[in-house]
């Protein structure tokens, strides 16, 4: 049923429909509306879950880790500094192959303190072994949760997943969202069946230490599972599309790329603005298209290279910066296009919540066509 909902509430509703058994979370802006909504649902007996009000994000994910190992479907949500505080636990969860789903309401990292949106937080966990899916709008933000649980809990995958939505831009925006019914979600997402669990009748040891003779193989297996998950994501996306008509099966979404000279590459809500900008530029006869990267981890190298194979140049909009190097998405795109001869230009944009409008996207395309890139877009003049 189509409803006008705040992004956070839509996500909370999708989480409820995913039937988590244990939720552990700690408040942080702009994630709070999600966990408040879930607390309301538990308080009103609309959601039958154990809700642990932990004393820190570090404990939130640690409690999720224990709850998942004991055999429950688990959920948390965080952002920014909270995710940074979870850093150590994130690597642990992935290494222990626990299929936790966590919403990341993307926000910048201090210093200076900023509560506003960019994608530095989740990008900084790119090497941790968590699947990372980025939502373009609130409909996708809700639907990706069902898909994330499905992929994460697949016994051939068993990896945790971030579902990322841009802070405020999506989380605090009211949009029409088609909310599935419980029966619909149940038909897509079966009850959680743990591969192994802490159980007195079948005791196992979780989280043992590994000597140099064994450690590398564990890392290899996580990497292999990551790579296998691309197919699982597409399969889950196709099944979702068949059932409900919305298709997220492509790890990268192409928009008007067929005859494009300049291809923009971006992740998350900026893609909506970019699509409008592309439409305007197309009306003026400029051959511009967009590639929306939906799965940043695993990175869909082959899909991306195929989608961009015919373009003359690529302009990447990076809402993050690997300081001293480039934006993280651009680095991946360069790797994926290595040997193709297609130039990849990087634009660090919209850090700390700076607004991006259609004219900014058009300005980036202008710069790219003049072969001017690898820069911070829209800086105040006094720092130049």
């Amino acid at each position: 049923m189509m409803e006008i909902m705040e992004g956070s509430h839509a996500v909370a509703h999708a989480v409820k429909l995913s039937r988590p058994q244990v939720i552990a979370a700690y408040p942080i802006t702009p994630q709070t509306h999600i966990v408040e909504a879930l607390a309301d649902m538990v308080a009103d007996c609309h959601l039958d879950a154990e809700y642990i009000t932990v004393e820190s994000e570090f404990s939130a994910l640690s409690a999720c880790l224990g709850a998942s190992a004991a055999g429950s479907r688990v959920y948390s949500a965080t952002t920014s500094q909270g995710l940074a505080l979870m850093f150590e636990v994130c690597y642990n969860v992935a290494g222990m192959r626990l299929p936790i789903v966590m919403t990341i309401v993307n926000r910048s990292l201090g210093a200076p303190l900023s509560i506003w949106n960019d994608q530095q937080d989740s990008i900084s966990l790119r090497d941790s072994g968590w699947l990372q899916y980025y939502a373009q709008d609130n409909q996708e933000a809700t639907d990706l949760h069902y898909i994330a649980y499905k992929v994460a809990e697949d016994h051939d995958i068993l990896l945790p997943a971030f579902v990322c939505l841009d802070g405020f831009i999506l989380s605090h925006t009211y949009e029409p969202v088609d909310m599935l019914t419980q029966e619909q979600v149940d038909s897509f997402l079966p009850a959680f069946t743990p591969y192994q669990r802490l159980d007195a009748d079948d005791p196992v040891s979780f989280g043992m230490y590994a000597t140099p003779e064994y450690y590398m193989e564990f890392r290899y297996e996580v990497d292999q599972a990551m790579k296998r998950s691309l197919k699982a994501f597409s399969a889950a996306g196709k099944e979702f599309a068949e059932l409900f008509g919305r298709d997220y099966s492509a790890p990268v979404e192409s928009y008007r790329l067929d005859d494009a000279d300049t291809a923009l590459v971006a992740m998350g809500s900026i893609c909506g603005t970019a699509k409008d900008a592309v439409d305007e530029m197309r009306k003026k006869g400029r051959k511009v298209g967009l590639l929306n990267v939906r799965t940043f981890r695993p990175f869909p190298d082959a899909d991306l290279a195929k989608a961009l194979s015919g373009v003359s140049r690529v302009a990447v909009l990076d809402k993050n910066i690997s300081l001293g190097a480039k934006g993280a998405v651009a680095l991946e795109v360069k790797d994926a296009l290595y040997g193709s001869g297609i130039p990849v230009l990087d634009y660090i944009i919209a850090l700390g919540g700076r607004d991006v409008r259609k004219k900014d996207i058009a300005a980036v395309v202008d710069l790219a066509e003049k072969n001017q890139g690898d820069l911070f877009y829209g800086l105040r003049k006094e720092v130049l």
Partner: protein
Amino acid sequence: MAGSNCDLFEFGHRACGGCGAALAARLILDAAGKDTIVCSATGCMEVFSTPYPETAWKVPWIHSLFENNSAVASGVEASLKKQGRREKVIALGGDGATFDIGILCISGAFERGHDITYVCYDNEAYMNTGIQRSGATPYDASTTTSPAGKCSLGNPRQKKDLPAILAAHGAPYVATASIAYPADVKKKIQKALETKGPCYVQIHAPCCTGWGFEGEKTMAIGKLAVETGLWVNFEMEEGRVTRAKKVVRKPVEEYLKEQKRFRHLFRPTRNDEEIQKIQAIADRNADRYGIDLKIKKD
């Protein structure tokens, strides 16, 4: 060891001969039985008991990180509750994990009132990393980060009073015990597990390697700690001390002189002033917990 559950912590682990912590693990599982899930912190116990692909644990066991065992245990407990399961949950950590790096998570878990038992095996320093001082290291003990030297007498602070801190969280049952009194350890573990809510048991576990004594003396050293009043075995129920083991106290010197970590108090010259300060700590313990049967005269 007599008892039906003593094989739940399997032999063949890598602990030093005479390890007090390994004995603590056996006593804990002996008391807890097979329907127990153990959430271990990083530390000696975790490392010597689970070198992949071998494990000494015959109960379900999980290790995540150094500082989060009580948060992991919170999640395990909530998960079991949701599934209607009845296993008992133990969070297990050394004194570094418990007194220092993990205290935030412990405070949170106790404040929230999870039905878990936190057990600290207290060997009074970071032993796994090579005997560095922790918040549980006693006054004047020489460690690798509080070494005795020309201008240092060893650790400058007394042990943190963690039992009181956790009792102040409203823990229904808090107890201290020593591996030198095995039946007492088991009784207290059982009582903690039977008590609903977050309970705490702190077990004195002498470390022959870290404290500097021969492995066959572990029990004797543990006993001397209690007999001198430097370690008190007590129980607190609903925040009040309800029981403490009474002893005919021996001078602290009898305990100190057996361990290399206190050797600087006797050699090259005897430091009576410092030994007296440590005696005063034991005297305060005796007074606070009322443990004196009769003070032994010189």
